[in-house]
């Protein structure tokens, strides 16, 4: 088969969501609606201390006064916040002592996703804190980590076991009134992950979390807090898949990273939530606030591969507070069919000699819209700050769009800011060239897309890079490669 625009379009449309299945696990779900009582009930349900309850209530009161933002380059039907259930947890008898006690159907879900805990446990170097509908159900490798003094647990557990750390840092980078969705998350967050790396410790393994939205109509509000103490290092992986749903699911997570003096945090995400059907029906709304704070000489790297969600609204950012601190953002965002993504980053340079790098790769197909939105802000006392930004867009077909919104605010004249942008299209000539060498169209697209995304894929940890590469192929092709 040779290759025309028409055929490309057709091929892109035939891709079906691979992970569209629903796990039938008994769960404990709150009635729909949101008010102060619900917020208090969530806190009670989670047996939280009073300071946490009050923190949530304060956030809720702030949220009530806020208006949903509309500046993003996306159009969608606003969620009805009173028609969402704000708490859903798989019912459990007691705490699990071993995997054998975990619901077999849940384990089966992980098997379908190819991330069976059994297998993962054996894979040296990866500890997983599995979050399934808000509550962590299994945590592995805890012992190895504990020996180094590393804390890696659910945020609920951290609130109980390490209140001094949580109290000190939660909301310190993303204040509870930061924005509409951050405030909502602060009020109702169900669970999430907590990680603390002590002074001078290099975390010996990649820490990883798999998120999954499961209950129909349940919004998920994850809260992640990662603290790297002075001179420490951690690489954190977050991967997401969700079952197919015919209604929109709201996801509003908050991730806060704190890199103290000389510390380094690498945060990688592969996101594959249900993008909606090819007619644009359903799909996850992903409104996330991710932000990191760098103290002196610290470094934060965000790497993301975004292939899912109907609407994505996400700007992992770095506040380069300390002198000589470094912020990096590497992103691949793929949109197909009716998906809309408005994603990018913010690099806020406050300290002297701060540096930031932004590499953004947007791939649009079908009738999708893909926007890069980035802010580079150089504060007046940020002497010799440097930024390099590169935004590349790849278009497939004639019905999709790529947009770039770079914002630059420089208040110090010693700043050096570079911005490069390119837009290209997968051409019939490229496809024919590959065909002539014996490479079929599907493989040719995969090759071209992977080549386009290479600079970012290279930044991912090895095991994630393979998964991500596969995901790109799945997202853009007629069948699984």
């Amino acid at each position: 088969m040779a290759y025309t625009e028409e055929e490309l379009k057709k091929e892109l449309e035939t891709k079906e969501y691979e992970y569209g299945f629903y796990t039938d696990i008994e769960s404990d779900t709150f009635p729909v609606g949101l008010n102060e009582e619900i917020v208090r009930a969530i806190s009670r349900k989670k047996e939280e201390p009073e300071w946490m309850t009050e923190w949530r209530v304060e956030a809720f009161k702030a949220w009530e006064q806020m208006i949903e933002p509309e500046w993003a380059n996306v159009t969608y039907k606003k969620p009805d916040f009173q028609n969402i259930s704000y708490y859903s947890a798989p019912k459990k008898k007691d705490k699990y002592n071993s995997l054998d006690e975990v619901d077999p159907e849940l384990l089966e879900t992980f098997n379908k996703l190819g991330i069976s805990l059994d297998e993962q446990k054996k894979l040296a170097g990866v500890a997983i804190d599995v979050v399934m509908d808000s509550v962590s159900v299994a945590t592995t490798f805890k012992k190895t980590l504990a020996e180094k003094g590393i804390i890696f647990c659910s945020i609920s557990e951290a609130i109980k076991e390490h209140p001094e750390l949580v109290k000190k840092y939660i909301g310190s980078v993303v204040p509870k009134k930061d924005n509409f969705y951050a405030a909502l998350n602060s009020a109702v967050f169900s669970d999430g992950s907590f990680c603390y790396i002590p002074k001078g410790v290099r975390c010996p393994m990649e820490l990883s979390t798999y998120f999954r939205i499961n209950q129909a109509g349940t919004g998920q509000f994850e809260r992640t807090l990662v603290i790297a103490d002075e001179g420490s290092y951690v690489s954190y992986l977050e991967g997401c898949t969700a079952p197919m749903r015919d209604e929109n699911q709201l996801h509003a997570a908050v991730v806060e990273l704190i890199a103290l003096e000389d510390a380094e945090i690498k945060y990688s995400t592969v996101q594959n939530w249900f993008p909606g059907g090819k007619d644009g029906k359903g799909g996850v709304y992903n409104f996330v606030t991710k932000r990191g704070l760098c103290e002196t000489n610290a470094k934060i790297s965000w790497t993301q591969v975004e292939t899912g969600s109907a609407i994505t609204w996400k700007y992992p950012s770095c506040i380069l507070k300390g002198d000589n601190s470094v912020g990096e953002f590497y992103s691949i965002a793929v949109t197909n069919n009716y998906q809309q993504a408005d994603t990018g980053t913010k690099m806020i340079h406050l300290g002297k000699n701060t540096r930031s790098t932004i590499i953004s790769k947007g791939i649009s197909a079908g009738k999708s819209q893909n926007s890069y939105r980035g802010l580079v802000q150089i504060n007046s006392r940020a002497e010799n700050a440097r930024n390099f930004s590169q935004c590349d867009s790849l278009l497939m077909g004639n019905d999709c769009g790529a947009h770039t919104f770079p914002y630059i605010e420089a208040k110090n004249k010693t700043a050096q800011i570079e911005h490069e942008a390119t837009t290209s299209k997968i051409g019939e000539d490229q496809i024919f060239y590959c065909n002539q060498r014996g490479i079929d169209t599907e493989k040719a697209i995969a090759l071209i897309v992977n080549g386009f995304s290479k600079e970012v894929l290279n930044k991912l940890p090895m095991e994630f890079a393979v998964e991500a590469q596969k995901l790109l192929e799945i997202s853009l092709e007629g069948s699984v490669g």
Partner: protein
Amino acid sequence: MLKINNLHAGVEGKEILKGINIEVNAGEVHAIMGPNGSGKSTLSSVIAGKEEFEVTEGNILFQGEDVEEFSPEERAHKGIFLSFQYPVEIPGVSVTNFMKTAINETRKAQGLEEMPANEMLKKIREKSELLEIDRKFLSRSLNEGFSGGEKKRNEIFQMAMLEPKLAILDETDSGLDIDALRIVSNGVNRLRSKDNAVVVITHYQRLLDYIVPDFVHVLLDGKIVKSGGAELAHELEEKGYDWIKQEKVSN
């Protein structure tokens, strides 16, 4: 090996090839010469199976099979190779990775296992030496930022790696300086055997000093108007295409 019978083909209803007949046997080198716009590149695209061209009459037989129903990649799997006049760039895909994919996809189609890495490496080393290609070149993105000469040399390197039965060299000499021309021709000559065939498509006679053809065909306005031996190319160089045109008119 290749038999083209009364081939009529065009694009968007406009006929470009108006009844071509050529027969190429294993072990032979044919040159197709003609001025700009005579249909040379269309002929190579049609043989390779480029979709935008439509065959309206006649057929192309490759090893006795009508290629009409075969996709471009199937034709490649059967051993048809086209050295492009304007090779495309594929950013981020190294020459090595591209070659590895092409070879393994072809092997897969033939029901063979993937080529073992050490065998691939050996082959890459051997063929890159043949074409005097620096190893560093192989890690660069395919054709991205390549000079005209590098692009063409890379095409012939791919041909050497894929070992096709029939190689069509479309204006391979354009953009080559004299040294590159020597290296490329040398490579092609070394790859010639009694089992494969080469069709050289060119505007100028220059390349044919290095790759000496057994047969020369002159393509004019979509038709082969004259065929002969290597000496025909020299005659063309001396007298120009007008000579043929006049001859054609007087006939």
